[in-house]
């Protein structure tokens, strides 16, 4: 007889962010987001909080199977709240560049989420890819370990037969950035800006050497920190 898997409980917490990742899941009722709708047949969205809701809160009443955190934890209040979330969650998934590596809201030397709490999984990107997020959540429901691609954006860019910006003497972080976005920015002639974070074994020193022949060193630092810290 086929085993019926019970729904898993899900909560979403939105810290300092633009609200896109949160908005993806909150608007999941809309049929156009069909991958997310199938996710909701397996995961019961029991609560979502944004930073207005978190004001004055010093406890979370329920425990959840899966908690999604988007946004960067700014300041002591949000840092303490991230720790509270961790205590009430079996699995924590950080989504988006802000939760992953600080994003556009992080101040220099401010600890990012995974330096404050244990993060079980990360779905990177700015914005997060809806299909990738849905696949992740479905894998979690079925008890699988979700995997991110190990290849670089550079690999995907070459597969898409784009002209190489580095060869043209232009800045691009494709060789050290984790793939999975199908080199969307490069497909439109724009540089990869590293929003998905470093790929495994990325050689940042070598990348810096290559970029030094194109631009001053301080510009390289500015490029590598558009979406927070590109150091994992």
């Amino acid at each position: 007889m086929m085993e019926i898997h019970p729904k898993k409980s899900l909560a979403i917490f939105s810290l300092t962010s633009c609200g896109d990742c949160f908005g993806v899941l909150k608007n999941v009722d809309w049929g156009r987001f069909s991958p997310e709708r199938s996710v909701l047949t397996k995961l019961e969205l029991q609560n979502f909080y944004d930073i207005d809701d978190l004001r004055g809160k010093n406890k979370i009443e329920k425990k959840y199977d899966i908690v999604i955190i988007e946004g960067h934890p700014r300041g002591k209040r949000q840092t303490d709240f991230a720790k509270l979330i961790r205590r009430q969650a079996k699995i924590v998934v950080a989504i988006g560049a802000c939760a992953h590596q600080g994003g556009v809201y992080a101040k220099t030397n401010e600890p990012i989420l995974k330096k404050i709490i244990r993060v079980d999984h990360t779905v990177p990107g700015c914005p997060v890819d809806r299909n990738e997020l849905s696949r992740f959540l479905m894998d979690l429901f079925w008890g699988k370990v979700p995997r991110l691609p190990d290849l670089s954006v550079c690999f995907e860019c070459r597969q898409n037969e784009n002209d190489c910006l580095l060869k043209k003497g232009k800045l691009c972080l494709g060789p050290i950035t984790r793939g999975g976005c199908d080199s969307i920015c490069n497909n439109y002639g724009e540089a990869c800006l590293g929003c998905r974070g470093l790929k495994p074994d990325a050689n940042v020193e070598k990348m810096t050497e290559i970029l030094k022949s194109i631009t001053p060193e301080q510009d390289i630092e500015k490029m590598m920190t558009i979406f927070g810290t590109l150091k994992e």
Partner: protein
Amino acid sequence: MRASRNKTMANEIMKNQLISKNLIGRPYWQAPILAARVEAKNCIAHHLVAIKAIESACNIKVSTQTVNLRKLLLAAEFIKNHTLYLYEAILPTFLDLETVSELAKMHPEIYHCALALTQFTDQILISIGGRVFYPITSVVSGFKSHPNKSELKQFVASNENLATFADQTLRLFAGLKLQAEKSKTDFVALHQNDEYAFYDGEIWTSAGEIITRDKFEKLVKYSNKKTFGALARYNLSQSHLDAHTKKLLSELKVEKNLSGQSGEMLAAATELNYFITLSMNLLEKLARDGVKPEHILPPQKFSTGSAVIESAGGAIIHSCELDKNGIILKYEIDMLNYS
């Protein structure tokens, strides 16, 4: 309502300040990328006003084609935000429903109307900007990539009935019996003499005052005494709506002076009609004439500049100061809107 509006404003101001500080020391071209991330639902407005501020600082004039493509992106964002506001925030409550899923089950024809409108906006944003949020193709001085003529023609043909959905939306919401609230308030929005202002113009109040950059900062501080967004634009610029929308408003006996929540709802539904008509006209023109690839010229001079734009929720101003190498010395974001 006021307490939650003040909290949301405080968060928005905090995020504006974070992004503004983060931009200091960065090259000018990073401004539209980071500024777009102030808030996802108005990312196009922030992205475009950042671009316009940089172009103002660099004395760059863009082509009519570029302006039209930008207006299409911005109009798409307006249509999406108004659709979500009307069909997600207002209508379910009115029909005593909890969620949009229930709306889809109980009133599928209404749900499909909303779905068609949001699908249209997503198509425009992807076709012109590269993706739904945080456009890729749009940069300082123009666009790096353009849709081709056949894509545009196909797009126009597949959305022929869109005006009907916008029409139905205004009729639906004009038919809802919300208690009219008469309130005295000062409306603040962009205004132009020759068109319904949303991409460009001067900030006016209904008292007839033109708001400069310095006064705008003060206005943001005391914004709880003002009305902005669709309601303000409707009251200040309804004479510039297109003929079809005006005829529909007259047929439905929608008042010329709207106020309160019922007014806000009708103003949003009216703008939905206007922006659908505008979008289709722009798309037909681009499909007919074709989109000419334009070379992006890097800026030669750098100085100070500012620009203003409307988002669905209200006016936004970005100001910047650049050094002689195009590095951002100062950046400010002020907005008169709240989620």
